[in-house]
């Protein structure tokens, strides 16, 4: 009961966050007309422009139909990228939650951020820096220290602190870097470009196919690594593959939609599915479903209510989590 109460409080805490987090760049009113005028492939609305649009949000925007909203190019891209991240992120999240390595995700995200900062400083594509540093993170987290002296959770904490320090130091040398990095990390799903959508889908598809091909091995080494090792599995290699796949998904997802939505999809749907399922295969399926369902709902209502889509999607996921918790409680 205490756990449910905590979940409920968490969901309440998210509501003001998504109300305060000001709107996605509302599309230009003319885009709603869905006429021959094409929507710009990359919305480039600045924060100040957003505010101006908030003031002048036309009435027809507030009552737009689902078909009308998702008829817009940028909303279609947001929907496709969001569904890919929701489905695959939630699937991977089952491993993250079951293996109790949520903090590994945080550490890898921090490495990715350091990579973005490095990319901005050197004038490289931030995604390249992000992936490069994520790989460094996977390597460092895969190192096995003497377990009696340095526990694995300590190594993860060290990695997180190191990556944070590197990010701050890199930003100190780049006057515009902080704003750029913050924009990139806080992210906005509806500003995702066509190229980033394709890249994200490609990367997540590769990760998902790998997971389906090696599903039984990844499950075995996650559930009982000692027995897997005795059965001649190279558990260290498999664990590195698992961490790497999660790192790739995190790096691409953060680049496309920011940290909040990436972690929202990685953790919350998996917990909801675990509360309701009694078969591991059902857990993966339901988690993917819980990861996908809030995407179109959150996108649509964030559009017509003028809210931050990422925060609203996370809030909807949390409502599903609370409902799953209550249902699970009732069943027992």
């Amino acid at each position, binding site marked *: 009961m205490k756990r449910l109460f905590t979940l409920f409080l968490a969901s309440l805490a998210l509501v003001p966050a998504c109300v305060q987090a000001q709107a996605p760049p509302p599309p230009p009113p003319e885009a709603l007309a869905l006429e021959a005028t094409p929507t710009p492939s990359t919305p480039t609305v600045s924060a100040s422009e957003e505010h101006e649009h908030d003031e002048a949000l036309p009435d027809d925007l507030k009552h737009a139909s689902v078909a009308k909203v998702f008829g817009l190019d940028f909303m279609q891209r947001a929907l496709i990228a969001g569904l890919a991240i929701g489905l695959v992120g939630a699937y991977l999240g089952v491993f993250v*939650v079951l293996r109790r390595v949520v903090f590994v995700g945080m550490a890898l995200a921090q490495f990715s951020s350091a990579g973005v900062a490095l990319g901005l400083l050197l004038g490289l594509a931030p995604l390249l820096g992000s992936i490069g540093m994520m790989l460094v993170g996977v390597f460092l987290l895969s190192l096995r220290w003497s377990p009696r002296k340095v526990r694995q959770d300590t190594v993860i904490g060290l990695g997180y602190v190191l990556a944070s320090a590197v990010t701050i130091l890199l930003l100190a040398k780049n006057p515009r870097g902080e704003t750029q990095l913050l924009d990139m990390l806080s992210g906005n799903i509806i500003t995702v470009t066509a190229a980033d959508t394709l890249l994200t889908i490609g990367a997540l598809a590769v990760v998902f196919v790998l997971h389906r*091909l090696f599903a039984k*091995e990844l499950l075995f080494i*996650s559930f009982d690594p000692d027995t897997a090792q005795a059965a001649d599995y190279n558990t260290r290699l498999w664990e590195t593959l698992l961490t790497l796949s999660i790192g790739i998904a995190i790096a691409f997802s953060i680049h496309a939609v920011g940290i909040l939505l990436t972690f929202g999809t990685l953790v919350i749907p998996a917990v909801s599915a675990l509360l309701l399922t009694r078969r591991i295969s059902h857990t993966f399926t339901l988690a993917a479903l819980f990861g996908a369902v809030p995407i179109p709902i959150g996108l649509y209502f964030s559009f017509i209510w003028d809210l931050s889509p990422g925060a609203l999607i996370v809030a909807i996921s949390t409502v599903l989590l609370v409902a799953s918790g209550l249902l699970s409680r009732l069943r027992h």
Partner: protein
Amino acid sequence: MENTPLITFDDATLGYGRRVVLPSLSFGLSEGGYLGIVGPNGAGKTTLLKAILGILAPLSGKAIHHRKLTFGYVPQAQTTDDLFPITVQEIVVMGRYRRVGLLKNPGSEDRQRAESALEQVGLPHLSTRLFRELSGGQKQRVLMARALVSEPDVLVLDEPTSAMDIAAESATMELIERIHQQSLLLVVLVSHSLNIVANHARTVAILGGTHFQIGPVEKIVQPETLRELFNYDFKILEVDGRRLVL
């Protein structure tokens, strides 16, 4: 009953990095054997087990597997993670993964073998139950079924009766005895209880600090040998054909 040699330790020193845990071990294990490894926590039981499994290479000397061996490893039931929603059958089928191979999924034959293994350990009715909902004794039997379904050459059991009540402990040890008698399996049993090992194993390895002694139970479980190893006067009674070390 013992015949083909499977594993030989030839002056093998075991440890980690520069830290020696067990120096200069020399002994052999054969098909049909039953080795009990006994010793207090920290004496090196897990280290020896890892070396037998081939996971830990000796610092010096040799640990030889005479052929490619399949190990059926049975961990302590309480080390498994109850967060995983996995059914009994799904766990037992894991024992088939190595034989199924990469990029393939277990088929109906594998599930059939899993059912047979569950019957062998006396739990045919539990295959659809969630593993985490079972008692400690039932979990241990399921893990034994998983080890058996892998068609092992060596059955390795790590503290199979820890945290069990006396009835579950007896039933588990009888089951291991039955499995051993029905097959040519080499059984390696790790326990902190000398009484369990003295009454079930054929060969016993005693680890105690810097001491290591291995030999037939009748020779090692004697007051003089135990006094030499532990510097303590043990009494060994025989009650109804069973040894009682006090």
